[in-house]
């Protein structure tokens, strides 16, 4: 469903991604781990071309993302994205945050968009906040709205860019629970996170990155109990023994 083939990316002379090869199958949950600055978020953001690749091939659903001729808006309608800082629209109510893209980008009617939005708000457990503004919500609630906003486009793929990193610790659980439900329902997900528990429990596969390269790729049991690469071992020991 998502295929990276020898993808490289440069910022000027600095190489951010080096020889990325990765294949994500439909319904698969891939968790990307690695130290800060290792290129995890950049790789994720290439999938919907928030970042441009410099060379190599990147396909989503058989469509070349790196092709200039690709209809970017059409491609993106099928890929939901959740950001570290939620990026809700502060001037719009929760319900309008969710209905905006379906109405504008999909051309869905207002009443249908409203219905869909309420459905997903219920799913993430905050239907009662539909008429609130984002600033009136806690961080965890905001991030759940952001997930509902992504889902309302009924995408086949959801991307998560450190969705819990900006949250107070006691709110991490509520967001991860929503993500777990999604995973169980068969959503194709690529998740950049530092939540090891989530990776261990939900991931079909863990991808470990360092310095712009994929160092190791393994099922979570194997990755967490016996990482092959030294860099991954070091990373895990630092995380687990602090």
């Amino acid at each position, binding site marked *: 469903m998502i295929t990276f083939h020898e993808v490289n990316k440069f910022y000027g002379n600095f190489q951010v991604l080096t020889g990325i090869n990765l294949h994500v199958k439909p319904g698969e949950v891939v968790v990307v781990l690695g130290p800060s600055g290792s290129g995890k978020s950049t790789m994720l953001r290439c999938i*919907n071309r*928030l970042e441009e690749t410099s060379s190599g091939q990147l396909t989503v659903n058989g469509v070349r993302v790196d092709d200039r001729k690709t209809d970017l*808006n*059409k491609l*993106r*309608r099928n*890929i*939901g*994205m959740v*950001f570290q*800082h939620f*990026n*809700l*629209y*502060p*001037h719009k109510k929760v319900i309008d945050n969710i209905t*905006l*893209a379906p109405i*504008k*980008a*999909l051309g869905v009617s207002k009443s249908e968009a409203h219905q869909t939005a309420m459905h997903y708000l219920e799913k993430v457990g905050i239907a009662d906040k539909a008429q609130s503004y984002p*600033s009136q919500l806690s961080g965890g609630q905001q991030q759940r709205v*952001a997930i509902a*906003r*992504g889902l309302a*486009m009924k995408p086949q793929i959801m991307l998560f860019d450190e969705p819990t990193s900006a949250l107070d610790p006691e709110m991490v659980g509520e967001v991860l629970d929503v993500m777990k439900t999604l995973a169980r329902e068969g959503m194709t997900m690529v998740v950049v996170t530092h939540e090891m528990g989530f990776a261990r429990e939900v991931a079909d596969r863990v991808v470990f990155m360092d310095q712009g390269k994929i160092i190791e790729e393994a099922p979570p049991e194997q990755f967490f109990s016996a990482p092959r690469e030294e860099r991954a071992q070091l990373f895990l020991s630092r995380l687990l023994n602090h």
Partner: protein
Amino acid sequence: MIDFSILVNYFPYYIEGFLNTILASVLALIGSFVLGSILAVFRITGVKPLQWIGTAYVEFVRNIPLLLIVFFFWYALPTFGMRLDGFQAGTVGLTIYTAAFIAEAIRAGILSVPKGQMEAARSSGMTYVQAMLHVVLPQAIKLVIPPLSNQFINLIKNSSVLTVVAGLDLMYFADKVNGDSYATVSAYVFAGLFYLVLTLPMSYGSHVLERRLAKSS
């Protein structure tokens, strides 16, 4: 010291100047807002030639005196076969000049909307224009209102530049009153009061608007 009979005797002069100042200001306000918005968008699109045009315009116009720009339209244009009267030359000069500042105010407003807003909108499949229209600009407007109203107040005051090209504005008629009556202080004090009639409500209005917008966010 202040002779109110001057105001009474020359009232028609003041009113004509006052109305011309309003007309020049409104025309320049509309013109500079439209031109300034276009230039601001030029500067942020990321399309290099447009960006270059926008930057060159702003940097060039902002860094020369308003008087010089008005002189250009008054003295230089006729050599190219175009003749504007004083009012036209002054108003066009004012528009060209103010547009540079308005472009900067609008650009700064758009740029201070966090980048994540555009990214969120674009990543959900909205076009650049849709994202601008529904997500970025509504947030930018709040940030732009205080500097923009400043620019508009400056514009009204700067319209006094029309005097030097015989633009029939308020200052021009104040000069006339002075020349006619030799009551210099009174002649200009009343002109000042007429300017305040225009600028004070604007200043007050922008504060009210600012507060109302601050509440809604």
